[in-house]
Structures are given as C-alpha cells and as structure tokens.
C-alpha cells in the first residue's frame, strides 16, 4: 500500500476523522490504523517531529475506540519521539498522560514505569520536573501497595537531588525510602537508607542535623541493632573527636562501601570543611550549662 508515504497516510486518516457535511461520524477504526502506520514510517525515517504528532493522533484514536492500553502505549512512543526532538515540556506531558491511561487500565506498575521513564529523560534538562515525576511514580506505587518497586525510584531521585546539591532534600528523600522499606519489612534497605541520610547531612557540613538524624534513627529498633548503626557511631564519634584521619578511616569502612555508589562518592569526600569546629562546638555546649549552674 502507501507504506512508503506516511504523509499520504496522515492526510487520508485526517480526512476520515474530520467531520463535514458528508461525514457525520468519524471513522476512528481505520483512521487509527493509518495513523499508526504513518507514525512507524516516520520513526523509521527519523522524522521525530512528525512521528510525535502521528503517535499523538493514534493515541487519541485508540482512546476513542475505548482501548486505554493501546492509547497509553502510543502516548509513550509519542513521548519518546518528543524526547528525540528535545521538546521537554511535551515529554513530561505525554508521559503523565500515558501514566494516567495506564491507571485507567488498572495497572499501576506500567504507570509508574512511564513516569520513571519520563523522569530519566528529563534528568539533565529539567531536573525539577524529573524530581516531581519520580515523586509521583513513587506515590503511584505506594498507593497500590507495591513499595518494594519504589526503592529504585527513590534512589534515582536522591541521586538527582545530590547532583543538584540539594542535600536537605536528598536526605529527606532517603528518610522516605526508609519509611517505605519499613512498610515492607526490608530492614537492610532501611538501615542503609538511614546511614546514607546521615552521610548526606555530614557532607552538607551540617553536624547538628546529622546528630539529630542519628538520634531519630536510633529510635528505630531495626537500625539500633544493625551494622550500619555501628558505622554511623564510628563516623559521628570521629567527627566529635575532630580527627580527620579517623573520619577518613571510618568512611572507607566496608559497611559504607556497600551503599549506593553516589553515597559512597560523598563518603569518600568527607570531611568537608573544618572538623575541629564540631569538636569545639560539642565542648562549648557542655560548658555553658555548667556555667549557668555555677552562676545559680
């Protein structure tokens, strides 16, 4: 047929769908078939702009034929073509629409996969949008009770935050990961997440936060009895001692080397900045209450 001329296919399909005096009902069935053929032909010819439009129309056609699964698949292809073009807003919109259609089908896993794909595509261009997509993907999975699958997404989002140097947000995300791990009894991942959060705080040179985080984590029994707790205590005590060598040694330990590689990179770069201030800060805090006692 006219497989070699997608423009003609598109024109034909448009004619089928456009309503006019002679045509009272759009013939979506045939039109969708033509749109799909045209879109594939465009993709082979690497005309991604036109392929994207064709996929969009094909997806709409499938929606009209009440087949949300095919519609979602076409939306994803449209988004992939948009990524090639470089139109980032459209990429995000298409992936969101695809995930909505998947949720309509009642399949949460492909929905979150679509959002994750979108986030990965946008990591370099629009990192904030990527974070939002990751968060939504995790929410989708958690609503459906499949938190186990969300771990990878959390880790990816954390690495994006760290790339953006937003360490507070990264640590918060890690704590959310720990919460998800707690919900599905994944103690090892939970402890790893806590240790990673503490390391991120230390890398951001925020010792108080790190200590607070450590104290919070020690409330959790699983963390209290784990190897990661030991490593954390070593690291924090090295910080309070102000001993750079000790910090370096603690950071090279095998427990930390089993974490996510982004976190390992951060740990290797510890300590950042002046460590002695922490040491002094600790003693100062102790002296002040004593002085007050003495005064009274």
């Amino acid at each position, binding site marked *: 047929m006219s497989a070699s001329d997608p423009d003609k296919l598109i024109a034909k399909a448009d004619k089928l769908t456009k309503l006019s005096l002679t045509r009272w009902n759009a013939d979506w069935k045939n039109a969708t078939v033509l749109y799909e053929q045209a879109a594939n032909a465009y993709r082979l010819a690497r005309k991604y702009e036109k392929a994207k439009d064709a996929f969009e129309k094909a997806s709409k056609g499938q929606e009209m034929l009440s087949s949300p699964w095919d519609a979602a698949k076409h939306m994803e292809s449209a988004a992939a073509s948009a990524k090639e073009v470089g139109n980032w807003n459209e990429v995000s919109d298409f992936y969101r629409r695809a995930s909505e259609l998947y949720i309509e089908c009642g399949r949460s896993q492909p929905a979150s996969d679509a959002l994750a794909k979108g986030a990965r595509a946008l990591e370099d261009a629009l990192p904030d949008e990527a974070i939002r997509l990751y968060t939504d993907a995790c929410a989708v999975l958690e609503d459906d009770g499949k938190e186990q699958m969300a771990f990878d997404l959390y880790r990816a989002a954390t690495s994006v935050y760290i790339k953006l140097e937003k360490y507070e947000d990264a640590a918060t995300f890690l704590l959310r990961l720990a919460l998800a791990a707690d919900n599905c009894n994944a103690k090892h991942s939970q402890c790893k997440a806590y240790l990673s959060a503490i390391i991120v705080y230390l890398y951001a040179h925020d010792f108080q936060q790190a200590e607070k985080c450590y104290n919070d984590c020690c409330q959790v029994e699983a963390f*209290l009895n784990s190897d990661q707790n*030991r490593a954390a205590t*070593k690291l924090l005590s090295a910080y309070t001692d102000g001993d750079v060598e000790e910090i370096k040694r603690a950071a090279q330990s*095998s*427990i930390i080397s*089993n974490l996510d590689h982004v976190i390992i990179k951060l740990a290797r770069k510890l300590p950042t900045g002046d460590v002695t201030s922490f040491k002094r800060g600790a003693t100062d805090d102790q002296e002040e209450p004593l002085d007050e006692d003495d005064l009274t």
Partner: protein
Amino acid sequence: MVWLQKAEVAAVEKNRAAAVAMNAEVRRIKARLMDEVPKLQKLAKKKVKDLSKEELEARNDLVLVLPERIQAIPDGATSKQTQGWGASSSHKNIKFDSELLISCSYTLFIISSKSISDGPVDGDFFQQTEEASQFRQEFEMRKMKQACSFLHLPSIFGIFIPILFISHIIKSVLMQDEGLDIISEGLDTLKNLAKDMNEELDRQVPLIDEIDTKVDKTTSDLRRNNVRLKETLTKVRSTRNFCIDIILLCILLGIATYLYHTNVKPLKYYKIHIFYVNWVGSRYDLADRPLAPRRHDFPTKYSYLEDFNSLAKPQQPHGVLEFRTDLCYLQPHDTKSLPEPIRSLINRSIRIDQLDNSE
C-alpha cells in the same frame, strides 16, 4: 613461669582455638596480677635497705600505674562496649600490649625480687628463683641508670628468654589477627550481598505469584476449550451421521447425471455399410466420391446412391461409414431428409474397410 610455658605451647599449635585459650589464660593471669597488686603496693612502701629514696618513689609509681596497665591488656573477651563495636585491635595496640605485658612482668619481678629478699612471699607465681637472682643483678645495674629508661634496655638483658617466648606468641597472635581481619572484611561483603539478595527475592515473590495465577487461568481456559472442541467433533463425525451424508451425496450425484443426460446432446453413432458398387461397363467408383461426410455436404453428396435400389442383392459390405451425430446435421429426427436408400440402410450396418479399385 607456668603461664608463659602454657602460652608457648599455645603458640606452637597455631590455631584460633589456641588464640582463644591464650586469651583465657591471659584473663586468668590478669586476675591474679590484680590480686597481687595490693601486696606489691605494701611491699613497695616497705622500706628496704639499699634502696634510695628516688627509686622507692619510682617503685611506688610503678605499682600505682600497674593496675591500670594490667586492665588495659586486651584479653579478647571484653564485651563490646558499644553495640557491636568490633575489636579491631590494630597491630600497634598489640605491640603496645606486649610492651605492657613485658613491663608488668618486669615490675612484678623487680618488686618481687626485692620482696623475696625481704621475706617470704607466697607464690608459685614467683617461683623462678634463678630469674629472681637475675633480676637482682640487673636491678643493681639499674641503680646506675636513669629511672625512665629502665623499661627498655634492661628488659632486653633481663627478660631475654621470656621475651623470646612472649614475642613468639605475640607474633603468632598478630598473624592470626591479620588473617581474621581479612576474613571479617570478606564476611562483611558477603553479609551485605546476602541481605540485598534476600530483599530482591522478597520483591520478586509477589510478581511471580501474579504470573502464576495468570498462567493457571490460561491453562484452565485452554483445557475447557479443548473439551468443547472434542464434544463438537464427536457430534459432527459420528458414524450414523456419516452414512446419511454419503447417501444424500449419492442421490445428489444421481440427480445431476440425469439432468445432464436429458439436457445435453446425446451422442449417437450411425454406421452405414457401403457396398462397393460396380457397374458393368463403367466403374462407378464410390471411392472417387468423398465418402466421409462433411458437415454441410451430407444430404447432397450421396445423391448418387439413389440407384442403390437397382443393385443386386447386397453382398458383403465393403465398408462402414461411420459418422457421428454431433458432427453433422444428422439428427434422429432428421432421417426423413435423407435420401431413401440411405434411410433404409440406417439400421443395417454398412462398413467400409478398404476400397480397392479392382474391376
């Protein structure tokens, strides 16, 4: 020293059980040392004859320091002070501890040697009198030297033999510790890997359960469809129905044949035997005439046969004229148009075999 000998034996065995046993021994010895310390303190305070004031003070200091240093000797059984704080005794700790051991034993010997000279002291612990005399010798040497350097040089001279044993033990302990460190690192890695694998499997289990249910549903669908297909087939192909089908088929064929025969041109062959006619005087050679009937020529060409009636009685026919009704106009109802002689011959066969020109 009994305990040193025991330690030496343990070192010779060179395995982890020996290390544990050694640690237990060291613990025991520490306990005994601690028991003896108060006695030593009393002894130290006792005024001895040829002892200068500084040395007395030095001895007092030694004794005071001794309990701490005894406690500081690691015996491998200290319970983890913080949860799971690994007893990663580095090598320098061990060396330090060996020095401690040496210095403790030395101070004990020094003090005990002096106290032996003063009065009886209980002790299988302080049995080695020959060593006590050795210590006395180098104690005299020590008088000449500074107080702070006594720990190192005299120990080499004085406690040479026990130090050999001790260093041997310490070396083996060091080696064992190195090996144990490496093993522990490997175990750490293994543990992490195993835990990660555990969680991954936990993640996969519900997915596989889903697949399982879907596949079960599909197999049951297939089975049901197979059964229905079997029922349908048996219904269709049962023998009774099969015979009925064949009979009906035959009837249909018969009807078709009948219709064909009634409607289609029936094929008839007409044979006319031709007699070779020979007129006297003239040869009337039928062979000259084209006898094969041509489609359009048939009625006219055979007009010469009108004289047939005047012939003599028919003899042996000389030929058969065969013609087919579908090739010519001669239809059964057309025989009336035939010339008379031929018409009368239609039922009698005429055969043309060969036409010879004989006269």
